[in-house]
């Protein structure tokens, strides 16, 4: 009984030991960077979820006319990976879920400057001031409410109101969610650290309910566990697209008056300088800013298209230019570290 097993294990051992040996042989011929060897494939590192963007990236392949390989991952982790790869990065294009990760690469000088005509397609507020990256789609912070518990007219117009006593224990939010943290960072930029800390404390003291993520927050509002939820707009529109509006209990309120709670986060893209793929990568950016791609973001991911001339046709979605979002340099949202320290101090994460 034991013999055959031992034999098999010996075989495994032999096979296993051969592997690193082979690997070592393979590593001897050192090749130069991928772009130089007639290898014309475009490699995209995508921090955006495959489920959301694969269809449009498939079309991108046809549009740029070369083979496109996509590596999906977490935006921050992919940024760390690119930083670690340095000038030997395989990535030609970095498609990020948020501006922060793009800013980190720009800061290390890893992104190529984009042509002015590309940049000009997008409002200054939603691209890098130095021309390193460009925003492609936007998502607005909103308040979701349960109309069985709150009349439309009573929904707060400012995040400052949700910490008032009448909302005690009735507000839900997701403190570990990146968009919520970006909103807190925006509030710090707009109103200062002290005011933000006070607000967070008040939110906590007011018995606001924490959820694991935005979807769970929306579920909480749907089920009436809380009356109000601080979420991103597209979760609600996705829910409506999935279930039909009559089956969705909650409603959305877009905050007026440049309230910090109406922040718009963007997903964007930057071209890697050292990959030898900048020409195709720039074509890819062109495509992502084209009407076809922008319409995709509007219709399929329910976000706001950022390129001029494209408007969302999603039913019930307020037009982008009607949103009264705060004026914030999204580049400044890189100071997330302090936001997290603050959330930890207050005891929310």
């Amino acid at each position, binding site marked *: 009984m*034991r*013999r055959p*097993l*031992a034999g098999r*294990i*010996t075989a*495994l*051992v*032999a*096979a*296993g*030991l051969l*592997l*690193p040996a*082979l*690997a070592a042989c*393979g*590593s001897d*011929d*050192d*090749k130069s960077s991928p772009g130089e060897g007639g290898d014309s494939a475009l490699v995209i590192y995508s921090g955006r*979820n*495959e*489920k*959301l963007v694969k269809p449009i990236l498939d079309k991108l392949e046809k549009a740029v006319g070369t083979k496109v*390989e*996509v*590596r*999906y*991952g977490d935006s*921050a*982790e992919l940024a*760390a*990976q690119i*930083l*670690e*790869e340095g000038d*030997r990065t*395989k990535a030609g294009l970095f498609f990020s879920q948020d501006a*922060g990760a793009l800013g980190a690469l720009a800061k290390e000088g890893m992104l190529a400057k984009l042509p002015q005509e590309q940049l000009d397609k997008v409002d200054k507020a939603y691209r890098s001031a130095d021309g390193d990256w460009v925003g492609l789609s936007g998502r607005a912070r909103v308040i979701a409410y349960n109309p069985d518990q709150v009349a439309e007219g009573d929904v707060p117009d400012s995040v400052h109101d949700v910490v008032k006593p009448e909302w005690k224990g009735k507000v839900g939010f997701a*403190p*570990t969610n*990146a968009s919520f*943290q970006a909103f807190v960072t925006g509030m710090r930029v707009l109103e200062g650290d002290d005011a933000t800390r006070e607000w967070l404390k008040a939110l906590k003291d007011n018995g606001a309910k*924490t*959820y*694991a993520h935005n*979807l*769970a927050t929306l579920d909480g509002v749907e089920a009436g566990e809380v009356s109000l939820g601080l979420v991103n707009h597209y*979760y609600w529109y*996705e829910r409506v697209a*999935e*279930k039909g509006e009559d089956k969705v209990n909650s409603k959305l309120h877009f905050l007026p008056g440049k309230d910090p709670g109406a922040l718009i986060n963007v997903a964007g893209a930057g071209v890697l300088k050292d990959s030898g793929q900048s020409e195709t990568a720039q074509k890819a950016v062109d495509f992502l800013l084209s009407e076809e791609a922008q319409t995709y973001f509007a219709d399929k991911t329910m976000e706001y298209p950022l390129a001029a001339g494209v408007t969302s046709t999603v039913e019930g979605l307020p037009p982008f230019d009607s949103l009264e979002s705060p004026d914030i340099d999204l580049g400044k949202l*890189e100071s*997330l*570290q302090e*936001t*997290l320290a603050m959330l*930890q101090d207050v005891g929310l*994460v």
Partner: protein
Amino acid sequence: MQKALGARSFRIAAGPRPPLVLLVPACVAALFALLPLGYLAVRALERGPGYAWDVVADERTLHLLGRSLGLTAVVVAASLVLGVSLAWLTVRTALPGARAWSVLATLPLAVPSYVAAFAWLSAAPGLAGFAGAALALTLVSFPYVHLPVAAALRGIDPAQEEASRSLGHGPAATFLRVTLPQLRPAAAGGGLLVALYVLSDFGAVSLMRYDTFTRAIHTSYRASFDRTPAAALSVVLVVMTVALVAAEARTRGRAGHARTGTGTARPAVPMALGRWGPPALLWCGAVVAVAIVFPLGTLAYWLTAGSSATWDLGAIADTAWATLTVAAAGAALTTALALPVGVIAARHRGRGARLLEQAAYAGHALPGITVALSLVFFAVRYAYPLYQQLPLLVCAYAVLFLPVAVAATRAAVLQAPPVLEDVARSLGRRPWQVLREVTVPLAAPGVAAGAALTFVVCMKELPATLLLRPTGMDTLATRLWTETGAGSFAAAAPYAAALILLAAVPSYLLGRHRT
């Protein structure tokens, strides 16, 4: 038969220097495991030792260290209780369906910690915090104790327990004074793995919103995109790991645990449970219910509640096949590298042997993302053609999970009497012949258990797989990540279920093997 009683009294000698046939591959394995540390040194000192020290000496660092250690202690204690009790009940008693329980007790290992945390959180949001993190982590990591302890129990010669009973000890006293001490190496080794798993875990603690050391490391990557503080904090984890490994080594004592009697040990006669039968069944049932049935039930709920469910069986099968292949290769390489380290750790007591074993463990508490980035760092610089190729991913698994296989190998070799190796040597066998003809065959069941364990943890590995996989390749774990990331829990469920079902295969084979 009388000689068997003497088993506990013989001591392992300091032993001669390990033969080269063991020493060379063991050193290769250790160097492999030390790669992440080299990377950490480069990154942590990037801005000078002063900066790194400031990060480490921060008051928050100490605070987080305390929280991490507290969580670790609770999870280890709970895992020991669950793991040892289930192992004893399934191996040594006449528990109805013992083999099935034994297989079921291994399965929780295939449940990713974030799936467990998610399931508990959606059922009871109030669990968020320490309690939830401890619960989720215990339920996914107790098989680390259960498997080696069960293997050790199978290897114990029942003659010793019989002698103890004949000398007037009751079953409880026999268990405490004869059986338990022999289980100590296996239980302590398993407990150490649980401890390091808890220290390195990010999935469960982040969902449960319990701030630990690993979360601080992740925050450094995610919030400030800064690898220097992350590396400095990681170094603290390494120091902590080495301390834990040293502490575990101290609990080992100097007793030998091999059988020295003549002939072959009989299989133990299963103990009749009598009136303890129903409570024992209830206990096993309860553990399996919370550790396996509950997460599977949650998956079933996701399937029925969401509309994103797609039963693309072809895609699931392809992904499952890719996962099996890469996990099998990972387990094979890891086991091969662990074998020499495990044999040396069991048979030799010099400082060199201790260092080798510690080196194998050193990086095991590091979060997957840190290990993955270190391999990116080295591969891009020194093995560029391999970068983002399958062999590198397999190597990453070996770096990540070497201690899992080392612990299993060491515990298995400890149970094989060294005197048989001495006899083989005295008969003129060369060291590699001794290894092949005596040590490995005797330790084979334990080594195979270690390989199965490694296989399962490779299957569910996520952070390193995401960064190092060939572009376009998916494993069940990465698919699960993609689907849950898009909020499509119903579409995620089949992948999570496939992961758990595939893990059942090695568990089942292990259960069969012991007959």
